[in-house]
C-alpha cells in the first residue's frame, strides 16, 4: 500500500547564471516524496542536490539562479505559482528545512530560546509561558540535555551536535508535513552523526513526517531513508527502494558509488574510486552526463539522454544499457 504523494517534483529545471555564462544545474528532474516517507537524494558535490532543496523552498538565490521549467507541487498546490507572501506562509509551517552547517545556521547574537520562540510565535501563535513550555518539549524530544539551560544559551556556547538539534527543533516548531534536511550531518563528528541520524529516523516515524534527506553519504541513506534518488550532473539517474539500491543497484553510476564506499566487512582494503571528474555545470550537456566516466558507455550515450525505464519493482533507471522501455 502506497501513501499519497506529498511533494511532487516534475521535470524541474534550474539555471545558474555565472561569469562563464548560463548552466543548467538541475536538468529536468522528477521525483515524489510520499506522506510519512523519507526519500534520500544522493549525489556528489555540485550534482544539484542543494539547489533542488532550496528551489523546493523557493529560496534559491536570485538573480544568480532561476527556475527554467517544470512543476513543484505540495499536496497538489503548485508552489511555483504562489505569490511571495503565500509561499512564505508555507515555509516553516508546511515545509521546513535543516541546513548543512549547524555552526553557521543559528544567529550568533540571539539566545536559543528567542530563535525557537520566534518560530513558535509565528506558526503557532505561542507567547510567554506557553511558548517556553513547548520549546522545552521540543528540545526534550530532540534529547537535548538540560533544555532549560539550552534555551538561555547563545549558539556559541553549544556543541555542533547540540546546535544541529536546536536547528531541528526550530524546523519542527511549525509542525511541518515535509522536512528537507540538506546534508545535516556533514559537519558533525562521526559518533554525533550516528546519534543524530537515529533520532531523525525516530522523529520521522513518530510523527509520520515526510523527509527529503540530501547527502553524499550512502551510509546515512541506509540509516534514515525508505527510498533513494541518485543524482548525477543535474539529473536523477536512478530511483529505487533503499534495499534494492544496496542489493541490486542498476545504473553504472550507482554501482560505481557503492564500490567507492569503504566497507569494513570486505576483505579488500582498497577503495574503488570513480575515475574522472564530475561535469561542470557550465559544460553543455548532451546525452548522459555520466557517459564520459562510464565503463559501459556506447556511442548513443553521448548523443541522447536515455528516458526513464523500469529496472525492477519500484526501480526506475535512466541508462541505455539497463532496464526495459
Amino acid at each position: 500500500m502506497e501513501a499519497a504523494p506529498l511533494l511532487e517534483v516534475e521535470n524541474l529545471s534550474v539555471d545558474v547564471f555565472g561569469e562563464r555564462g548560463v548552466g543548467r544545474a538541475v536538468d529536468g528532474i522528477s521525483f515524489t516524496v510520499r506522506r510519512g516517507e523519507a526519500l534520500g537524494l544522493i549525489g556528489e558535490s555540485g550534482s544539484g542536490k542543494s539547489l533542488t532543496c532550496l528551489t523546493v523552498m523557493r529560496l534559491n538565490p536570485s538573480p544568480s539562479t532561476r527556475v527554467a521549467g517544470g512543476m513543484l507541487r505540495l499536496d497538489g498546490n503548485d508552489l511555483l505559482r504562489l505569490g511571495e507572501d503565500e509561499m512564505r506562509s508555507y515555509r516553516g509551517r508546511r515545509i521546513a528545512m535543516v541546513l548543512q552547517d549547524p555552526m553557521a545556521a543559528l544567529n550568533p547574537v540571539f539566545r536559543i530560546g528567542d530563535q525557537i520562540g520566534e518560530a513558535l510565535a509565528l506558526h503557532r501563535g505561542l507567547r510567554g509561558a506557553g511558548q517556553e513550555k513547548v520549546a522545552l518539549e521540543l528540545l526534550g524530544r530532540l534529547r537535548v540535555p538540560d533544555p532549560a539551560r539550552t534555551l538561555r544559551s547563545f549558539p556559541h556556547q553549544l556543541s555542533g551536535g547540540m546546535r544541529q538539534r536546536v536547528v531541528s527543533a526550530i524546523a519542527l516548531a511549525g509542525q511541518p508535513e515535509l522536512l528537507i534536511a540538506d546534508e545535516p550531518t556533514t559537519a558533525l563528528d562521526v559518533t554525533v552523526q550516528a546519534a543524530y541520524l537515529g533520532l531523525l529516523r525516530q522523529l520521522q516515524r513518530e510523527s509520520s513526517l515526510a523527509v527529503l534527506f540530501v547527502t553524499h553519504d550512502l551510509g546515512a541513506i541506509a540509516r534514515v531513508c525508505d527510498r533513494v534518488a541518485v543524482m548525477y550532473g543535474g539529473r536523477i539517474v536512478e530511483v529505487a527502494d533503499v534495499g534494492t539500491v544496496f542489493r541490486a543497484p542498476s545504473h553504472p553510476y550507482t554501482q560505481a558509488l557503492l564500490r567507492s564506499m569503504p566497507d569494513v566487512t570486505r576483505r579488500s582494503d582498497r577503495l574503488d574510486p570513480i575515475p574522472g571528474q564530475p561535469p561542470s555545470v557550465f559544460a553543455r550537456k548532451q546525452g548522459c552526463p555520466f557517459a564520459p566516466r562510464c565503463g559501459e558507455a556506447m556511442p548513443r550515450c553521448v548523443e541522447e539522454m536515455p528516458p526513464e525505464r523500469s529496472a525492477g519493482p519500484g526501480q526506475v533507471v535512466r541508462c541505455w544499457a539497463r532496464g526495459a522501455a
Partner: protein
Amino acid sequence: MLPMIASRALQALLTLLLTSVVVFVLARTSGNPVDLVLPPEATAAERRIFIERNGLDRPLPVQYAVFLGGVVQGDFGMSIRTRQPAVDLVLERLPRTLILATAGLFIALVISVPIGVLAAARRAGFWDRFGQGFALLGQSVPAFWLGIVLILVFSVHLQWLPSSGTGGWRNYVLPAIVLGWSISAGVVRLLRSSMLEVLGTEFIKLARAKGLTERRVIWKHALWNALIPVITFIGFMYGVIIASAVVVEVVFGWPGLGYLAYESTLWRDFPVLQCAVLAYTAVIVTINLLVDICYGLIDPRVRA
C-alpha cells in the same frame, strides 16, 4: 566585564598622561604668549613680570612638573589671557560641544543606517545607487564648505534657521547636520558591505526558511549582526566628530570647547589649551570604553 573595564581605565590614565606631555611641548614650540597678550608698548620690566608670573622663565621639565602637580589637585592653572581658572573655562564649554557632537552623531545615524540597510537589501536598485551617490558626496564635500553653504541657503536666503549662537533647538540644526555629514558616508558604506556579508550567511537562509517576513529578516536578524563593525567605527569616528567640531564651531560661532581651543591656540593661552586637549582626550577615551561595553551587549561572544 569588570576586569576589562579596570584594565581599560588604567590604559586611559596612561593615554591622558602621554597626551599631556605632547600637548605641553607642542604648544610651547608654537610661539610665545608674551607678544600676543601684552601691548606692543609694554616695557621690558612689564614683560619680565608677565613671564615670571606665568612661570615661563623656568626650564620646560620644571614647568611640566608644576603643571602636573597642579593637575593632580584639580588645578589646571589660570588662563594667561583672562586670568580665570582654565578648568572653569573648559567645563563651561565642554557640555555644549558634547551635546552638539551627540546631536551630529544622532543625525548621522538616523540618516545613514536606513540608507545603508536599504542599499544592501535592494542591491543594485534605487536605494543602492542613492546610497553610493550619498557616500560619494559625503566623502568629497568638506564640512566647512557645507557649513557655509547651509548658512547661505537656510539662514541668509530662506531665513529659516539661525546662522550662529546658542539658544533654542533651532540653533543646533545646521551645525549638527554639518557634523553628522562628516561620518554619514562612512557609516553608509560600512553598513552596506557589512549587511551584504551578513545577508549571505546560513543563519539568514535559515531565518527565511523559518517563514519570517523579509522585513524581520533584514531589520532584526541581519541588522543586529551587521551593526557590530559599525559600532567600532562610530567609536573611532566620535574622535573625528569632536575634531570637526572645532571647524564647525568656528564657522557657526558656537561657543563650545572647539571654539575655546581655537582661541587659546591663537593667543598661546597654554593652560587653557592644555586643559581643553586633555578634556578632549578624556571624552574620546570614555567613548571608546563605552563602545567596548556596547560591543559586549550586542555580541554575546565578546562577553565570555
